[in-house]
């Protein structure tokens, strides 16, 4: 049950007592709020009620005496009389349970749900205890896989319609359905068409019996053996709240928490099952150092930290602090991010620090734009301008919230981007703009000269425009996004922005100062010295691209990769390669030996999700808790501990007395945005930072070369499952990444002779790749789409950082 604000109170008689309820709310909720819990199976507060299971029957006074009514289908009205505990209700509950159990196999001892099963619990609490049915129960093959991750045992199913309603209403993937309705009704998929939804794991969580189970948790533990803690999912930046459950120091399961401002209890499968990476056998448990033979071999922490400190000191003494660069930090907690910002900018004194890898939004935008929360964007009646990446692929729960807002709350989404996306079917208007042309298309929409009259009218008539802004195309220069934001600010002064950031704690890392030119709390280098700091960098440093450029040209002595993997993640792949080869010393701080760490001189083993405590900041600026439940493998440790130890060896004290909380407290002491953190660790839905924006905005003018009739504009974007380290190390998602393809519109494919799976050669000014071509109706004419980090084909070799757009030629090879 969700807490609601009672705006229209009515009085009803509940079991003989007068109580207050909200007019029109469902009786089942009103009774529960007033202390009378009604048993239920099919009712779920986030799904449309259907009255399928009949377990919630109560006696409602109809004026002609009490009548049994399903309380999940009855809206409360003034003067209603309800009895939830009468003999009639008890008999009805007995009867319903006897029927529900008529075919249920009662295999609780071998069922994963046993111990946390609503059917089991309610059969004990409300059931008759014995059954009069002597007939043979129905038999089905048990269990059948309905997707890669989810298994279905139809014998246990009580046909509550929760999973099928979820698939249809919430996820929008109605791939499971009741079939053979009648006395043989069962939930199933269409033969050969699995329940391949990004959200399939939620059906397991809401199943009120053990019919749906997920392979990562099957037969792993009993509910009463689990230890649990609340935390926040860190697989993307939406910040879904979760309960992490472990047994014997091993995380076994994640469940979504019904957080009203964020995830409504839903999780995407990547978030739900991604914890498996932490249990991977490839986890780094000790530091590695490159020995004389050229191999990485295990060393103790003292040796590793000593040699890290000595190369850093040597670099500072040699070419000065700016020859040390720190790349990454979005994986870190807020506290760790702050400790690293302080280590880099105060102790070492370099400003060559960037927590993003050229694939995000500039710090000036994230910290400067007036913010909008997820709830504000999804507010009933709002108009949303969506300029981000495909939310279904990158920010799945934001996609669910937007989808719900469009379907149920009348939110009008106007989507402007290089291709149609997963959100397009729910958008009021989708306008495609060829890469590089977003600012001009948008300008026309906003000044009313666009041919897309309806989209234009929606945007122009919006009283309170909400903008979701992000990078829909990694092959397009980020300056074009800056230009777009600039344009919106100028044309629609009251617009507020939700940055569609991808990595978990980008916002927190930026707020902590892990960006060139910034100090914690969004202060710039021109500002005052933060409390507890001795110094700050003398000159402004460069962002990820400049750092890599410097490294490639031999100007970086120590390149610290703070949980980042530029070889796999920086869009301009050849620059990343040259940079790692050109940096004198590379230090990687990571839980895994990723592609970049393989080339490092020193790899420090870091802890991961649920192994360290702290806070994280979501894309909307919400700070929530990350709690520790298990210990990291071997001697792997938290990122802030590494920072403190390094600072110590460099002759400085980061000011940590006991725990990472000291870091949060220090930051709260001088940063206005972080004042909220001063009151101790955030609980529940967390606290919002001040997101009203700061006077930081810059403008950009980008010259986009005119499109050439012989070439297509490249769109490089991401899919949910790719070959990223954490996905590959996660047992259940390792095989889910698709093959590399280039997607073309039918109009562009026809003259090339591409008909489905033709191998083509994609050539840009800077390189070429051979890849299969497919026709995709979501791709507009003049555009070629490739996905980041899929398969062996490296689309990143086609582009060069700093080019406004990337033009490619596609030829059948």
């Amino acid at each position, binding site marked *: 049950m969700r807490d609601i604000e009672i705006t229209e109170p009515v009085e009803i008689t509940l079991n003989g007592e007068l109580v207050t309820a909200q007019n029109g709310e469902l009786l089942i909720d009103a009774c529960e709020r007033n202390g009378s819990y009604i048993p239920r199976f099919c009712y779920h507060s986030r799904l449309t009620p259907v009255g399928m299971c009949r377990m919630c029957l109560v006696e409602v006074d109809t004026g002609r005496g009490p009548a049994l009514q399903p309380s999940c289908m009855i809206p409360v009205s003034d003067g209603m009389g309800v009895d939830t505990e009468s003999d009639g209700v008890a008999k009805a509950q007995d009867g319903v349970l006897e029927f529900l159990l008529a075919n249920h196999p009662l295999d609780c001892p071998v069922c994963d749900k046993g111990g946390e099963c609503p059917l089991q619990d309610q059969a004990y609490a409300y059931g008759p205890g014995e059954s009069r049915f002597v007939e043979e129960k129905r038999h089905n093959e048990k269990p059948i896989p309905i997707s890669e991750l989810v298994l279905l045992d139809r014998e246990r199913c009580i046909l509550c319609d929760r999973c099928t309603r979820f698939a249809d209403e919430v996820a929008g993937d109605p791939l499971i359905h009741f079939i053979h*309705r009648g006395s043989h009704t069962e939930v199933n998929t269409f033969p050969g068409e699995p329940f391949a939804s990004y959200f399939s794991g939620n059906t397991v969580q809401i199943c009120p019996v053990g019919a749906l189970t997920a392979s990562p948790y099957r037969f792993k533990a009993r509910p009463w053996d689990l230890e649990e803690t609340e935390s926040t999912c860190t697989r993307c930046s939406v910040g879904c709240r979760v309960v992490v459950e472990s047994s014997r120091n091993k995380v076994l399961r994640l469940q979504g928490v019904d957080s009203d401002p964020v995830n409504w209890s839903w999780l995407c499968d990547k978030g739900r099952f991604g914890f498996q990476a932490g249990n991977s056998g490839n986890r780094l448990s000790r530091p590695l150092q490159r020995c004389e033979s050229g191999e990485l071999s295990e060393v103790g922490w003292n040796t590793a930290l000593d040699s890290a400190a000595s190369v850093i000191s040597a670099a500072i003494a040699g070419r000065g602090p700016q020859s040390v660069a720190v790349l990454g930090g979005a994986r870190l907690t807020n506290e760790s991010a702050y400790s690293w910002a302080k280590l880099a900018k105060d102790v070492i004194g370099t400003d060559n620090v960037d927590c993003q890898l050229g694939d995000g939004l500039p710090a000036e935008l994230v910290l400067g734009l007036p913010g909008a929360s997820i709830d504000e964007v999804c507010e009933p009646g709002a108009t949303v301008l969506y300029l981000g990446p495909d939310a279904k692929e990158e920010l799945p729960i934001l996609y669910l919230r937007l989808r719900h807002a469009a379907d149920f709350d009348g939110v009008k989404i106007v989507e402007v981007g290089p291709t149609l996306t997963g959100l397009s079917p729910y958008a009021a208007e989708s306008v495609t703009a060829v890469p590089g042309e977003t600012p001009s298309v948008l300008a026309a929409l906003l000044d009313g000269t666009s041919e897309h009259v309806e989209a234009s009218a929606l945007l122009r008539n919006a009283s309170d425009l909400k903008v979701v802004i992000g990078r829909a195309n990694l092959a397009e220069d980020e300056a074009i996004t800056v230009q777009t934001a600039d344009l919106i600010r100028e044309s629609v002064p009251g617009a507020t922005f939700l940055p569609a950031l991808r990595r978990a704690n980008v916002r927190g890392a930026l707020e902590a100062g892990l960006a060139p030119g910034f100090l914690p709390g969004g202060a710039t280098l021109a500002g005052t010295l933060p409390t507890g700091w001795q110094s700050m960098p003398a000159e402004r440093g460069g962002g990820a691209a400049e750092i890599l450029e410097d490294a490639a040209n031999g100007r970086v002595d120590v390149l610290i990769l703070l949980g980042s993997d530029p070889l796999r993640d920086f869009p301009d792949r050849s620059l990343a390669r040259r940079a790692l080869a050109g940096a004198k010393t590379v230090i990687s701080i990571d839980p895994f030996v990723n592609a970049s760490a393989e080339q490092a001189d020193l790899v420090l083993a870091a802890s991961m999700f649920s192994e360290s405590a702290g806070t994280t900041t979501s894309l909307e600026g919400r700070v929530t808790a990350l709690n520790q439940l298990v210990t990291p493998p071997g001697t792997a440790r938290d990122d802030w501990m590494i920072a403190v130890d390094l600072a110590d060896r460099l002759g400085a004290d980061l000011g940590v007395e006991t725990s990472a909380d000291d870091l949060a407290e220090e930051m709260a002491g001088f940063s206005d945005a972080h004042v909220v953190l001063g009151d101790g660790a955030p609980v529940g839905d967390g606290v919002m930072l001040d997101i009203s924006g700061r006077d930081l905005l810059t403008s950009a003018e980008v010259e986009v070369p005119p499109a050439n009739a012989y070439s297509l504009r490249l769109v490089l974007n991401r899919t949910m499952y790719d070959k990223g380290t954490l996905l590959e190390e996660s047992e259940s998602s390792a095989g889910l990444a698709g093959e590399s393809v280039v997607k073309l519109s039918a109009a562009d494919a026809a003259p090339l002779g591409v008909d489905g799976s033709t191998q083509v050669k994609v050539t840009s000014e800077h390189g070429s790749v051979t890849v299969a071509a497919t026709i995709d109706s979501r791709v507009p004419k003049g555009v070629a789409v490739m996905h980041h980090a899929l398969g062996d084909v490296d689309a990143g070799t086609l582009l060069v950082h700093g080019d406004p757009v990337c033009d490619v030629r596609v030829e059948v090879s």
Partner: protein
Amino acid sequence: MARLTPDNLLLARKIIARFPEPRSATIMLCHLAQEQDGYLSPEAMEQVAELIGATSAEVLGTASFYEMFKMHPVGKYCVNVCTNISCQLLGGEELLEHAEEVMGIRSGSTTADGMFTLEDVECVAACTEAPAVQVNYRYFNRVSPDDFDELLEDLRSGELSRTIPSHGTLGNVRQDLHGDRVANITSPSQQVEPAWFPNGDSDEGPAK
């Protein structure tokens, strides 16, 4: 089996165009596919789903509710013998046994020549004419074992081919309504008068 033939695909699109919501055409398109193939094949359900913008699972969910959509190939003639109470009392079960014997198959299966599928069914609403048999849903009343043998003979010889088309066929005559008559309904949001009021000029009478 196959997807819809080009002619049937054209007809399918015409049918869809008659409804404000493409999904409303689900059942009609399933009939069309069953008429073409004699049963509703997985490929056909996939195609229906594509045409109406649903998932195959939704089409299967709807179609599988209806006993008269066959999800597996059936014979040219679907012979249903009623074994419900009235027919049972007047020899329905014995008739079914007889049918199994003469056809050489158990109820629920199809003869090797693909001619007949035998089924025992619940009440077909012909209690006054018990025991009742249906062939492709055409009634045969008060059927004795001898009548049944004769019926099979007539079906085999083609004697009854005019009155009983092969399984799945909806009718011998297909009416073609004019394309601009969109099933006489508008979407609920646009409705200004009850749906049962005829469109346009009331002198024209009911839909032609």
